[in-house]
């Protein structure tokens, strides 16, 4: 049962008893009515609805969806592609998979409305390699939708035609980065492209204008087309409209996935009321609020938020509203909505070692700072964890991270350095203490851990 604080729109039918991913079930719930309605409307009108809705992308960056669509080069004479980013690989993030597994037709309807609005004739769903079951469900759902004339030629009996193809990744996080994804879809190594000039909106898939949107984002489009951009903008808070899917993992009583109106509840209520607070006898220590790449928050930290009118708010973590702008004001980001909670049992050096191992493994290796820096950071934390920590390691780690962020081809550079920068900045004492208490010199050959 959804928590009373939730407002379920996208997740309306997730885990609903008797709800199944097949077309018949979807149609029983009034499915594809919005698509039927939408293809009767001028496409530009739908784009306007999305602009009016204030919808921000749910893939991580919170980029305005209407603005993204507006940037698409429509004069080039080349086909426009739409790519659904279903790579969901950011550690801590688990939301898109439930849509795919339990309500695939909602996504397909959102895709088709978006394609119609943007005059797209071919859409691709790029799904994470580790989701083989999800890929099969999508294939089945697309086949059903095609048979029922919701996908393919002459949609809903009209003149508009559009195909959807499912493409499976091969297990690389960087394929979630939109230009890496495009390279991978083209059959190449997913080396992210240099922006500028390779903005997908202009030079995307096969050098054609391309829209890349997250799974959740496109589901919101369906609801916007349904209730209208203005009504949608009334959900949530200004500039952070609509609902958001949030996944909570880590040391809370009831981890899970939820949907809330953006900005309407705070991180404190989420963790204490919805998720039941810390485990017995434990205290929250740190929170990563928007997927592993977002900067960590200390639970005893105070955030001074300057308001437009000059007043200053004094927040603890529990006061932060769940929306893009509030997290940004606290020096981190809402990102992908994956909240990772750590209690006082967790050693932050070891936690960072874990994250660094992930980023070193996932760096595509194209550009020097990220390729070498991510592995170096991993080697340092691995060495620390294995008993060879030095007092100066925290400073060195942060310095290595500083040499990466802002100097790479793609935002992975930031993604891999923000954890290190923020862990060391906020828990510097813990890094020093680690060197002093956990140091157990070992023979050199035992250090071959990396």
């Amino acid at each position, binding site marked *: 049962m959804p928590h009373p604080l939730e407002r379920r729109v996208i997740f309306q039918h997730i885990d609903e008893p008797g709800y199944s991913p097949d077309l018949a079930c979807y149609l029983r719930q009034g499915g594809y009515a919005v698509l039927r309605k939408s293809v009767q409307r001028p496409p530009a009108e739908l784009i306007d609805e999305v602009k009016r809705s204030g919808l921000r992308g749910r893939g991580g960056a919170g980029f305005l969806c209407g603005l993204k669509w507006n940037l698409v080069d429509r004069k080039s004479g080349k086909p426009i592609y739409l790519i659904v980013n279903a790579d969901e690989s950011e550690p801590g993030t688990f939301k898109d998979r439930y849509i795919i597994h339990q309500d695939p037709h909602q996504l397909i309807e959102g895709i088709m409305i978006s394609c119609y609005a943007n005059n797209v004739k071919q859409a691709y769903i790029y799904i994470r390699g580790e989701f083989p079951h999800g890929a099969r469900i999508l294939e089945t759902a697309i086949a059903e939708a095609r048979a029922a004339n919701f996908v393919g030629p002459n949609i809903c009996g009209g003149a508009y035609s559009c195909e959807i193809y499912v493409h499976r990744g091969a297990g690389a996080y960087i394929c979630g980065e939109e230009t890496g994804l495009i390279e991978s879809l083209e059959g190449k190594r997913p080396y992210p492209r240099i922006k500028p000039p390779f903005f997908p909106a202009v030079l995307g898939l096969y050098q054609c204008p391309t829209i890349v949107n997250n799974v959740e984002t496109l589901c919101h489009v369906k609801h916007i087309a349904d209730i209208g951009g203005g009504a949608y903008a009334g959900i949530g808070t200004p500039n952070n409209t609509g609902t958001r899917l949030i996944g909570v993992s880590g040391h809370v009583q009831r981890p899970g996935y939820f949907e809330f109106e953006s900005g309407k509840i705070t991180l404190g209520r989420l963790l204490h009321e919805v998720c039941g607070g810390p485990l017995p006898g434990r205290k929250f220590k740190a929170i990563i609020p928007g997927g592993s790449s977002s900067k960590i928050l200390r639970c005893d930290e105070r955030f001074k938020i300057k308001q437009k009118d000059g007043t200053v708010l004094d927040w603890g973590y529990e006061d932060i509203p769940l929306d893009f702008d509030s997290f940004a004001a606290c020096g981190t980001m809402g990102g992908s909505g994956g909240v990772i909670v750590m209690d006082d049992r967790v050693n932050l050096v070891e936690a960072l070692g874990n994250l660094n191992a992930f980023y070193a493994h996932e760096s595509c*290796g194209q550009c020097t700072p990220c390729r070498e820096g991510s592995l170096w950071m991993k080697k340092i934390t691995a060495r620390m964890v294995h008993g060879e920590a030095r007092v100066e390691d925290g400073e060195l780690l942060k310095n290595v991270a500083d040499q990466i962020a802002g100097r790479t081809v793609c935002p992975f550079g930031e993604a891999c350095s923000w954890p290190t920068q923020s862990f060391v900045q906020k828990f510097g004492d813990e890094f020093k203490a680690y060197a002093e208490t956990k140091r157990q010199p070992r023979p050199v050959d035992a250090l071959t851990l990396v």
Partner: protein
Amino acid sequence: MTQPAQTDLITVTIDGREIAVPKGTNMIEAARLLGIDIPHYCYHPKLSVAGNCRMCLVEMGMLAFDPATKQPVMDPASGKQKVNWMPKPVIACFTNAAPGLHIRTNTPLVRECREGVMEFLLINHPLDCPICDQAGECKLQEQATAYGRGYSRFIEQKNVKPKRTLLGPRVMLDDERCVLCSRCIRFSKEVAKDDVLGFVDRGSYSTLTCYPGRRLENNYSLNTVDICPVGALTSVDFRFKMRVWFLKQTPSIDTESSVGVNTTVWSREGVIYRITPRRNDAVNDTWMPDSGRELYKQVRAENRLTAALAAGQSATLDAALAAAAELLKSAASAVAVVGSGRSSVDEQFLTRKLAAALKAPAWIVGRAGEGDGILLSTDRNPNTRGALVTGLIKALPGPQLGELAAAIDAGKVTTVLAVNEDLAAAGLTAAQLAKVRVIYLGTHANATSAAAQVVLPALTVFEKSGAFINQQFRLQKFVTAVPGPAGVSDDLATLARLLVAVGGPKLGETATTLWPALAAEIPALASVSFAGIPDEGLPLDSKPWAGLRFGEGASLHFQPAAAT
């Protein structure tokens, strides 16, 4: 890759200095024009931009305009228009000239960026320059001097990768030295049109390799060694033979075909160690075929002719020349001259003079091969155009000396002067060779030298100076890189002296002294002096030969004249 048009210039400001550059010029090239060096690894002027090394990061700004009024925003302090500097650095290699663009290459941030990249490139690098073959021409070594920390903060174990992988017959890979700049990959794909290289694995464990079942064995594979900024790719032929700082560099020309690839010959104490391409944006860019790099081996070949022979006996050059003159003069008007499309322009000029003095017909031997569309053309003589320009021949040569063979059979020719050509290879039978008396001037022993009454030893292209005219009618010179074998005189001197000995005029015996005669007599070369031929060559007027049907197809910087 294309050269920007010299029209529409755009003014950019680099470190406070303005420069006007053609549209499309990137900031590495623009800075170069101001004498400002922006260090880089992955960027190569003749390849697509990859932007992966991040060594070229610079600060970028644009002139400030008021968004409302569109008026320039002025800086009251300087009285100049304000510049909005971007917070993040950008890569110079992919930042093209734009109106109002400003970059800074000398700020603390830029220095920090370079030091950061240098540190990153070095942490997993072997740092064993004393035993690395690239030392002395290694970009990593050079830039470590300028931007390295001087000490290491890295106490972890370095990555271990394969040290000796043969990517193909001529190229060896040391993966630990590779900085993953992808120049070799881009070259293979974009220039050699052989998409054979790629990376496997990810992150710092990325490794260069050939695609499964493929080898890097195309005839351009060694260019990857040239453009590898570090010691990762080395030439199997050259590696560990000689430290590059001992080597003298001499400009030369690849004699393989009429493309006339510009080269550099690297030698020490009279011994050639390698040949590499020399940049010429109108001919070969920065590339050359692998096959042309092997040619230095002919200098020390076993069958090299090093002494004059007369009647089967070794002789002094004077005696051999006298014997040759005697044979030629005594044959009255039954002499034929076979010149060569491999001889230089001045040698061809003297050959023509010899033919005239002897009232002999002259041919050259055509040499055809497959054109590869890149830097090897179908005309495998470097100087067919030279033979036309000097008037040695009037029509394009065939591969066989058919007319000469017929004349020999008919007894009309009894004596042949062969300059740099093997008559047997050009189709004369042993019987025909036996029927005539032969004077042979050449570099290596062959059927003709064996049959010759007089043999005059000659120099290879590496041992003399001269000039060729390539398929573009571009006059290009080459210069002596190493001395010839002891006692072998320069070909020009040998030919000039033979000319005098058969009663011809006395002409210069060196390029410098001979060229005034060429300039005076040959309209296409009027006012050209040997010393005056620029390094990048001199385009000649090709109109007089527009009617000939040259065989070459398109190659890197050459389009055949439209068939008429």
